[in-house]
């Protein structure tokens, strides 16, 4: 066995997957993320770092083109995996196994040099920036392929230095129709019972953990982001047992305790409480993050563990959200129904103009719109 073959085999054991979320591909993305975590794989942040490109869901023409560009930028040995929206956990596992085998054999066009395609800096005229300096204006699209980014969201920006000067927000066209994974399948209104309500709450808490995972990853706190995603996967795997409830509470306490997080998120992406703006979007990024923590299942009153209810500073936001998953008082609601995801698209452009790249990422992650809940006509907003 040659040295190169041996190295390839070693390398294939820990590939770095770049996961691309497509519209209505949430289910597949969750399965891929959970399986990658189980295998101890570290997700790639950029195509040049990756060896595995995993497309979750149906890409459609626009995201398909973006995937083409990104694929060109992935160095050999490389493998492209497509996980269908309705793929089963077993199918995802098999697809990743096959990818590993292929990588160990040298991947697609192994060793070949790739073209010069990339995301070059196009020099596009100059203009005055916010400090009155004359700087190059760069046209940079954020999304649809970007780590820890809402599926299908595209923000076309004009950048000067690190600062966004102009922003156009839109939803990339979907490749297929579907319903959002986070809206659980509903039976007839008259037929709804306890199980349905439990399921709604469980999905909503999992959705909040998914958003928290994204926000904490963007906020540069990898340890907490990983914990959020693991809790999310456990929550989706079955009903919330006492141990999981305790772990959720511990996680919420840990996030609330972080002073650095408070320092960094306070005042980021402020949304005023106007008519038509749902309660859970109001405030700044920190308020929204704490709002998500409030929806997590907390230990039941009869739990043997000493349960200090939501220790630390308690978010005084919407009372309906606060106790939604707490033991006892249950609130019957479908969260997607308040139209918040559409409102976010309208708000985003205005919030992003004038923000630095890191702040812009935090604003998007703290609002985390689920574009799968939008009506079919994709909105375009300028700022």
């Amino acid at each position, binding site marked *: 066995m040659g040295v190169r073959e041996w190295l390839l085999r070693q390398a294939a054991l820990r590939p770095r997957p770049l996961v691309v979320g497509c519209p209505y591909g949430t289910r597949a993305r969750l399965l891929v993320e959970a399986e990658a975590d189980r295998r101890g794989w570290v997700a790639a942040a950029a195509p040049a770092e990756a060896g595995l490109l995993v497309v979750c869901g149906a890409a459609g023409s626009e995201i398909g083109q973006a995937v083409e560009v990104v694929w060109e930028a992935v160095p050999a040995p490389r493998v492209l995996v497509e996980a269908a929206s309705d793929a089963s956990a077993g199918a995802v596992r098999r697809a990743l196994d096959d990818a590993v085998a292929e990588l160990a054999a040298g991947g697609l066009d192994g060793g070949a040099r790739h073209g010069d*395609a990339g995301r070059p800096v196009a020099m596009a005229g100059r203009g005055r920036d916010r400090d009155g300096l004359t700087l190059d204006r760069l046209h940079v699209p954020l999304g649809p392929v970007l780590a820890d980014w809402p599926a299908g969201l595209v923000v076309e920006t004009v950048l000067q230095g690190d600062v966004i000067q102009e922003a156009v927000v839109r939803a990339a066209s979907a490749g297929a129709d579907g319903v959002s994974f986070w809206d659980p399948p509903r039976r007839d209104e008259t037929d709804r019972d306890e199980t349905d309500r439990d399921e709604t709450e469980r999905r909503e808490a999992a959705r909040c953990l998914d958003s928290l995972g994204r926000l904490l990853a963007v906020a540069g706190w990898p340890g907490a982001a990983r914990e959020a995603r693991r809790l999310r996967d456990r929550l989706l795997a079955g009903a919330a047992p006492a141990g999981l409830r305790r772990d959720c509470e511990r996680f919420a306490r840990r996030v609330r305790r972080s002073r650095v997080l408070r320092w960094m998120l306070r005042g980021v992406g402020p949304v005023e409480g106007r008519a038509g703006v749902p309660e859970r979007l109001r405030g700044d990024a920190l308020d929204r993050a704490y709002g998500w923590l409030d929806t997590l299942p907390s230990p039941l009153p009869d739990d043997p563990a000493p349960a200090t209810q939501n220790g630390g500073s308690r978010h005084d936001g919407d009372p309906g959200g606060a106790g939604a998953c707490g033991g006892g008082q249950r609130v019957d609601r479908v969260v997607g129904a308040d139209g918040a995801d559409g409102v976010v698209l309208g708000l985003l452009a205005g919030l992003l103009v004038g923000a630095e790249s*890191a702040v812009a990422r935090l604003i998007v992650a703290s609002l985390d719109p689920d574009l799968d809940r939008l009506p079919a006509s994709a909105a375009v907003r300028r700022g």
Partner: protein
Amino acid sequence: MDEGTGAAAVSLVVSLAVLAYGAAALDAGLGGARGAAGAPLREAARLLVQGRRRTLVPDTLLVRTGTVLLPLAALLAATVLPAGDRPVLDSGVGIVWFNAMEVCVWGALWLVGWGVNSVYPLIGGYRFLAQGLSYELPHMFALITVALGAGSLRIADVVAAQREVWFVVWMPVAFVVYLVSALAMAFWGPMGEPVGRNVAGGVPAELSGADRLVFAAGRYALLVVVAAAAVPLFLGGGAGPVLPGWAWTAVKTVAVLGGLVLVGQRVPAVRMDRFTEFAWVVLIPLTLLQTLVVAIVVLP
């Protein structure tokens, strides 16, 4: 160069490599990777067989220079640190040399970030410049405080001056500021925004294969060097009971290094739009006060 210096140079390179590998393995373990002890080896294997990515019209010379400069600067900075009884380069201006090598990192990151001609690395470069403007002055005042306390810029003299009391005891502010700036100059953990995931990995976003391997190795080497420098500067160097000097140096270095790696997983990223104000309004006056206190104490 006599025989002793040659042996010291070899042991320096070996211990730097071993500690850098250990830091990478510890970080992989804390980061949830399974089989963490072998994780850096597998990652190195992956990068060795990975093809080289080329962006559109990059300035290859600048990118290569910047990439190689990173481990080189770490190695050169380490030459003034005494591992046993004396360092490889027993310079009379050791502290200044250490600081100068660390400033080379500014150049290295900017050359890579600008040279590859791509948006995210460029943003990473901008971020590091802002970071440099925030941490460098408090960092230099912390180093000046140490030199003032020892009455010398030679690191061996700094160690000798701590025979009675370690500097960390009566210069706690300088020590804490040094640790914060240590994170910043190795762009590690909470100070890792120049290579943040939120800009697709920032400066090295377009590096692949051997280039990325050299960059990553250089970053871990830097982390080791800034951790190792805390030992002679604040923690009494090789001083300690029972064990020989080199062993105490190793133990203290590993402790500081472990702490820095741990902070990387435990603390969210710090953005310069908030930290710069804190650095200039709080940290600089604090370090100046610390310098004043030390100056009064050492006044003959």
